[in-house]
């Protein structure tokens, strides 16, 4: 019998972001109006395969998902894999965690790599509001089911006779919260008012997002992150020439019924968007064997949720609580992070998050800290723009952010090392989601 080595808890190995690819994001009803989720996810996968020469490669696992999903897409990711240039022996599964879907695929696949279950993986997400499923009314659905269960023509007729004209109206998907019947924008309007966020501050966030995204495109930063699709070469929502004056002219769209002034407009809220993104993940060994350069390690993640139904916290405030727990686990403060990526569901989501972190009172009373959690220098926040400019195809946003910031982390670290500075370079990724959910992750440059 072989000698057994003492059992110790092994340190998981690192899981790396090796690259990414997405299609430009389109405005709903725009260039991708005729594209399905499967079409877009397949295109994003094929662009990734082309960039990294993965044709015929059997990837360990592909995980992706969509928030707005047809019932026929029960195996969306696997079907996209089968339609792609990857080996058909690549396993796949679907994930659905509202707007956190994309980031959750990155987290869960990274964990599998860290545990040694996988050597390689592709995380992703896709959403279309142009090709969203339309359901029949609850009454019609019930009747149709009864008709199909009926045994005699008579029973069938009886079932059909229950129908009334109004039952024939289709039920379109909504982004309103099932428990409050408030739209996400109305929810955020409550939080905006609660934290007294001004219109000007929101418009500034939006302007900065457009300016930074446009600059990144102009610099060729997205040349190896984005593959054009259906005639779109840049995100359709991007307005490189927007200005505070133009943003100030827009009429508020959310919070019109509140006592506080309505500040949220189409300019400082994300529009409905179509798009898909993918992230290539792998172990150091797999990367080396495939001549790929690790860009950043996915170090850790923390999910959170708030009781937005009964409590005082806003619908999109879960990351406010998750991030302090995540950083505490690593002995880090906000100020230790070189980059902070906060998904811009609304400009005010970013601002209310920062306001909560900057509040002494909130830090003490809600986060259990000695004082305020911390501040984020705008120069380190969403450095290449975020969802306000790029758009937000729900499940695709996580992959967009992770691939973008991983590239930035790697470049930053390379220039730092070249200058003789070997200190770690880290990024925080924070994504809020429907249902009071939030998912946050910590990345470190490789």
């Amino acid at each position, binding site marked *: 019998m072989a000698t057994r080595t003492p059992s110790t808890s092994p340190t998981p190995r690192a899981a790396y972001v090796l690259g990414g690819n997405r299609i430009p994001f389109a405005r709903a009803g725009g260039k991708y109006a005729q594209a399905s989720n499967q079409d877009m996810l397949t*295109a994003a996968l*094929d*662009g990734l*395969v*082309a*960039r*990294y*020469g993965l*044709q*015929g490669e059997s990837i360990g696992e592909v995980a992706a998902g969509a928030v707005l999903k047809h019932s026929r897409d029960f195996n969306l990711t696997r079907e996209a894999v089968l339609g792609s*240039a990857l080996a058909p022996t690549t396993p796949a599964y679907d994930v659905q965690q509202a707007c956190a879907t994309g980031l959750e695929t990155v987290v869960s696949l990274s964990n599998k790599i860290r545990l040694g279950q996988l050597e390689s993986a592709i995380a992703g997400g896709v959403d279309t509001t142009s090709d969203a499923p339309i359901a029949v009314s609850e009454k019609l659905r019930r009747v149709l089911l009864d008709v199909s269960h009926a045994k005699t023509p008579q029973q069938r007729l009886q079932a059909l006779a229950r129908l009334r004209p109004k039952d024939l109206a289709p039920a379109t998907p909504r982004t309103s919260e099932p428990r409050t019947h408030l739209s996400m924008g109305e929810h955020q309007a409550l939080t905006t008012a609660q934290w007294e966020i001004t219109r000007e501050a929101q418009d500034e966030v939006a302007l900065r997002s457009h300016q930074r995204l446009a600059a990144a495109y102009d610099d*060729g930063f*997205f*040349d*190896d992150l*984005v*593959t*054009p*699709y*259906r005639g779109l*070469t840049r995100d359709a929502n991007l307005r490189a020439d927007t200005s505070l004056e133009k943003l100030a002219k827009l009429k508020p769209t959310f919070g019109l019924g509140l006592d506080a002034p309505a500040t949220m407009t189409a300019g400082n809220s994300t529009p409905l968007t179509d798009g898909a993104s993918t992230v290539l993940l792998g172990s150091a060994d797999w990367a080396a064997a495939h*001549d*790929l*350069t690790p860009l950043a390690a996915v170090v850790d993640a923390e999910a959170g949720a708030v009781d937005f139904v009964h409590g005082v916290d806003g619908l999109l405030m879960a990351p406010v609580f998750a991030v302090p727990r995540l950083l505490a686990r690593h002995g880090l403060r906000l100020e230790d992070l070189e980059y902070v990526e906060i998904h811009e569901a609304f400009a005010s989501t970013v601002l209310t998050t920062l306001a909560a972190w900057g509040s002494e009172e909130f830090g003490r009373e809600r986060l259990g800290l000695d004082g305020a959690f911390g501040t984020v220098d705008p120069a380190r926040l969403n450095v290449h723009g975020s969802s306000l400019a790029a758009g937000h195809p729900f499940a695709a946003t996580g992959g967009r952010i992770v691939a973008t910031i991983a590239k930035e982390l790697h470049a930053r670290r390379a220039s730092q090392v070249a200058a003789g500075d070997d200190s770690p370079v880290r990024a925080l990724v924070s994504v809020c989601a429907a249902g009071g959910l939030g998912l946050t992750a910590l990345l470190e440059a490789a």
Partner: protein
Amino acid sequence: MTDRYLELVNSGLTQKLAQQLGLPRPAVLRRHRPGRPLLDGPALVLGTGPDADLVARLLSSPAGGAPTTGETPAVLDGWDVEVHRHATPDVRYAAVVLVLTGVEHPDDLTAPVLAAASTLKRLRPGGRVVTLSHPALDSDAPAVAAARQGVDGFLRSLAKELRQGATGNGVVVAPGVPVSAPSVVAALRFFLSARSAFVDGQLLEVDSAAGELPTDWEKPLAGKVAVVTGAARGIGAAIADVLARDGASVVAVDVPAAGEQLAQVANRVRGTALQLDVTAPDAGDRIIAHAKARHGRLDVVVHNAGITRDKLLANMSDDRWASVLAVNIAAQLRINEALLTSGDFADEPRIVSLASTSGIAGNRGQTNYAASKGGVIGMVRATAPLLAPFGGTANAVAPGFIETEMTARIPAVTRQVARRLNSLQQGGQPVDVAEAIAFLASPAAGGILGRTLRVCGQNMVGR
């Protein structure tokens, strides 16, 4: 892009009609398919002397080689073709090779030329006539120079007489270079093969004995890493396909805006896509970095990316002139500079650049384009000597009328006329250009230094 006329004159009633009316009847050209034999019939090798004997043995020897016999050196690898040394009446030859390296007086052309003449009426469709000769030099005796230069005029005229997709081309062997040199052998094989379907009336010079014959003629680029710019569509996509078919790992490069088609090409050839504007100042460095990181090396760069902005010079805007020069020539010069100084492009490297018949013969409305393409011809001539110390070369291919999205935009009547203005009476296919590029990119083409090979079906204009 389809040529309706070509289809009509090759099928059914309309074929008969065209015949009776004496209309031009372009043939459907034989093109290379892996696994097909080099020739679909016997070859006639004409000429006397050791060079002719060597060529005959090269063609007739079995694959795998033949030993030394008498004066004739060993042939390492033969092509397994049925070879005749004298024209046999009634035989339908697939190829006639005239070995004219020994001619010293124009009278010496008479016997082989007349022997070839006797076979022409029965030459198979898609037949090949290939001459091997030496260039006429200033230092030659007048009679020798006359005989050698005579080959040039003879071949170009004969090519115009051939029908049914047959072509005539010549290999011009520099003094001191043996006929057994890799580039002579490879050029001969290229001209005999279906790979040269749209190359006609051309004399290709072989300048040195450098280069290496492939172990497998179907995979001459095995193990090589090739970059193709402008690879998203048209000729560039065909180049990527052919280089990959010939065994190369392909880096497909195109502007970010063409990324969707580029990804499709990269996935088809199992290569990698690099979205890059070749006019970017760091384009060369990025190409080298990508090829090295992802494929471990860089052997071949095909400068295919090009644009047209046609206008009569009198109406030419600054922008139209400048953008064409920037993409078609300045970018190539800058990338070559990066390649040459990198130290990573020094193992028998190959640069193959896209010129154009417009750059040779000129074309109304294309002063900018022709300046850039003429520039390419000059550039490769001057770049080849810089690469020669590493066993490298730079050469160009000058396409004539090729059926692409670009030429499909030419007005219908003009397009029909343009197609017929060559000896093969049709436009070439992107693959025809790609085949010539793959040949010049191959290790065997190491002795072809700074040349421009036309792929134009022997267009009536220019040389």
